């Protein structure tokens, strides 16, 4: 089985971790999640009904 060929194992390890540590995290980190649910506001928000503006 060619996957068991030990020759590129170290290179694959180095490459994959390099990309996993250096290139991917900045892209994930720049995602922001602004509307964080807060348990401090105990009251229910006023129900705002919204519908498509048919008229």
């Amino acid at each position, binding site marked *: *089985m*060619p*996957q*068991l*060929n030990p020759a*590129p*194992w170290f*290179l*694959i*390890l180095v*490459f*994959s*971790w390099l*990309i*996993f540590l250096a*290139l*991917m*995290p*900045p*892209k*994930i*980190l*720049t*995602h*922001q*999640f602004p509307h964080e649910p807060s348990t401090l506001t105990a009251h229910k928000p006023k129900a705002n009904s919204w519908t498509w503006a048919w008229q």
Partner: protein
Amino acid sequence: MTMNLFNQFLSPTFLGLPLIAIALMAPCLLYPSPAPWWQSNRWTTLQNWFIGSFIKQILSPINTKGHSWALLLATLMVFLITLNTLGLLPYTFTPTTQLSLNMAFAVPLWLATVIMGFRNSPTHALGHLLPEGTPTPLVPTLIIIESISLLIRPLALGVRLTANLTAGHLLIQLVSSAAFSLLLSQTTAASLAVGLLLLLTILEIAVAMIQAYVFVLLLSLYLQENV
């Protein structure tokens, strides 16, 4: 014959340059960093939703100390799911069929959870080796069994992903070559093979996503145990 079938998993090189590096870069190229403006485009919004809901789901059973692993788990998930699904396109190479890559991720991350557990609360971590309510004569046996099951985890993690993806790709290659060779002589059989191929492809898409999820989920479970 077998050598021919497994040839698709040979780490590809072109003029001595390993092409797996390009295959590994594919996820980075597909996900542009979100721009600083308030409303992003559809692709970025989709990624945002996915990362947010995934992180909420995977971190909910873990206590606050383990939440520092959020970035790592999110990156790993996006990375693996992209590599897996991209590999289903024709003529692409799936790096996650390489045992080297999967072990390269499984062993250090599992070891990190174990070392964390042993450093922060060694008694608690050792306590995992003996389930509660074990009858006394069974204690030594069970400790040995639990230690073996602990040590086999990274192997299982890596091999699970490799085997699932390799088997899927191999089946697709087998069935498609059968369908192609039967196309002119026995068209009915070929059409059955094509139907099977369609179902197989749908299965492989599901397997690609599920296996990536299972990898990260199991890691989060190992983290949960040790944190």
